[in-house]
């Protein structure tokens, strides 16, 4: 089974919706409990005070995931930089994807975005494993004029071969983000690929975060392949 990281702002009483827990019942889950601190507070200082309480809450959440059918463990991180923590822990546990929690009931239909510079192959493999033999319908979405590495027909066939009911939708004349958000209302959850960092994501924030903020429901972000250990400049 592939592993999915589920970050939870544990001390802010963020809850994971039951619909997301059930959706991830086919996967291994690592619940990443985190607490973001401002720069003036050493993370260790928060650990001293809140570690016990946070771990108790995380143990409960992991238990609920197990009740929903998957296998789950948890980790607790005090940090000043949420995204760095998510990336590091996802690397360490070898997570294929991470979740951005959102409100949802039972998930019957998921929207999969194949627009833009994303690893379509990894996304399709992930969706196949996620849906498994459950009756969850999939909509594949791409904006018009965007010919990715995998054609939409081939993608739909691949899901059909795995026994998944897939429909394709080509959005005309819309930017990828708007097209995605337009298609959201008929769906209960979104799967999309992690984008390469760009000037746009630097200025306006990660696309995935914006989708999550505007779509209300949960978003599963399939991570880009990590070619080699990152050689950071700092």
């Amino acid at each position, binding site marked *: 089974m592939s592993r999915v990281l589920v970050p939870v702002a544990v*001390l802010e009483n963020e809850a994971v919706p039951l619909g997301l827990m059930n959706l991830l019942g086919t996967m291994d889950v690592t619940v990443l409990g985190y*607490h*973001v*601190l*401002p*720069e*003036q*507070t*050493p*993370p*260790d*200082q*928060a*650990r*001293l*005070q*809140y*570690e016990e309480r*946070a*771990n108790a809450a995380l143990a409960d959440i992991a238990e609920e995931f197990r009740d929903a059918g998957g296998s789950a463990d948890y*980790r*607790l*991180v*005090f*940090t*000043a*930089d949420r995204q*760095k*923590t998510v990336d*590091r*822990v996802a690397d360490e546990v070898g997570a294929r994807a991470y979740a951005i929690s959102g409100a949802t009931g039972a998930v019957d239909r998921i929207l999969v975005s194949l627009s833009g510079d994303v690893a379509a192959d990894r996304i399709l493999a992930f969706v196949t494993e996620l849906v498994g033999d459950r009756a969850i319908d999939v909509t594949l979405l791409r904006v018009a004029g965007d010919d990715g590495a995998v054609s939409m027909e081939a993608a739909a066939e691949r899901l059909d071969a795995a026994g998944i009911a897939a429909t394709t939708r080509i959005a005309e004349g819309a930017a990828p983000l708007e097209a995605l958000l337009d298609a959201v209302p008929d769906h209960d959850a979104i799967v999309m690929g992690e984008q390469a960092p760009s000037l746009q994501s630097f200025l306006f924030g990660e696309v995935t975060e914006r989708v999550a903020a505007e779509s209300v429901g949960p978003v599963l972000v399939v991570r880009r392949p990590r070619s080699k250990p990152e050689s*950071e400049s*700092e």
Partner: protein
Amino acid sequence: MVSEEPTDVGANLEGEAPDVERSVETDEATYTDDSELERTIGLTGGLAIGVGTMIGAGIFVFPGLAAGRAGPAAAGSFALGGVVALLVALPASELATAMPKSGGGYYFISRGLGTLAGAVVGLSLWFGLVFAAAFYLVGFGFYAVDTLAELGIVLGPELVIPIALVFGVGFTLLNVTGTENAAKLQNGVVALLLSILAVVLLWGTLDALGLIGRPSTPERFMPFGPFPVLTTAALVFTSYLGFAQVATVAGEMKRPGRNLPLAMVGSVLVVTVLYVTTIFVATSAFGSERLASLGETAMVDVGRHYLGSAGALAIVFGGLLATMSSANASILSTSRAIYAVSKDALLPRWACRINLKYGTPHVALGMAGGPILVLVATGRVEVLAEVASFLHLVLYGLICVALVVLRRDEPEWYDPDFRTPGYPVVPALGAVASFALIGFMQTASQVIGLGLMLAAAGWYFYYARDVNLRGAL
């Protein structure tokens, strides 16, 4: 690095034991048994902490005072201070890479030399930072009045202290409630400041060397002889308090083995060059006697001399930024110093509580802000600066001693990524120089500093004599 099972660490008067956790340190995080602490500060952030803490006083408050005491040789005083700072920064870097945890100098000393030395240094550091922050705030008050004057709003010097008090309250509240991008703001302030200084100093240096403008009349280099150069070095050493603050964020720094030494040594080198150039330019502009008469904001007139009213405005603005950044950094460091001793049960545990609403250590920030306001109200710039230097110099001297003690009988856990070049000469010189600078201070400062250390020792014997921190990692 894997710590050994801790020995018995004892408990304080209220039965609180030091919080000693086994931990594994990597480049990206610290792993304790039940949680992880992310490392998020890069080299740039570390340099900004070091440079940002140091630069306020040296350039913008001291040139007039220093030139009055030592003449043009004040540049030598600053260079001497820089050398001493470097002699301490190297051993501090080694210890920080061996123990990359929050707590900084206090942590090294309590683990290397034991609880008494740790308690004296840890509590004195709280007071030392309070004195430093008060000093920066008074400097800020002077610059605020001058900035308004440049803009045509003339206020009397009697408003310096009230302005400093208002901003002291403001910074404390800001640190309790303001959680957005404090560090990024600090980085921006430091970058802007360095650009302003680079322009003014480059122009001034060209002018002073006679390449542009009219040649200035040379002056005797040491009009008062060599002794004032040393006493002035003791005074202006306050300008170098800050590089060790980098070690207080050691637990949050990415790739600590590389970034800690680079940030500490790098920030000392950067500010030394800036300071020496500044004094050279300032004394070339006016001659030391005139400079001395201009007092705390002499640099404004230096800016005016070289670049007209634009230069004056650039300097007052730079002075505002610099004293602000130093004051703010010191308030933050104070709260970290209180946290470090409170975690080790040398102060009650409630002193390091944080609130969930803002995630900030409001108690410790209050314990910083309150005393700072009292000291600001005294308005005694030189004494504030010297007491701050006194208490930091004791810390620095003991850091060097701790290095020698640890190296002579290296414990199993001691495995620094960076080893001080020139051992044992460098730490020995660092210790001697740090303690020697104390000897050149005013008697009043020495008495206050010594009194605070004795009070800290008294507190230890009363409150925490059963606490045992040596080697407790």
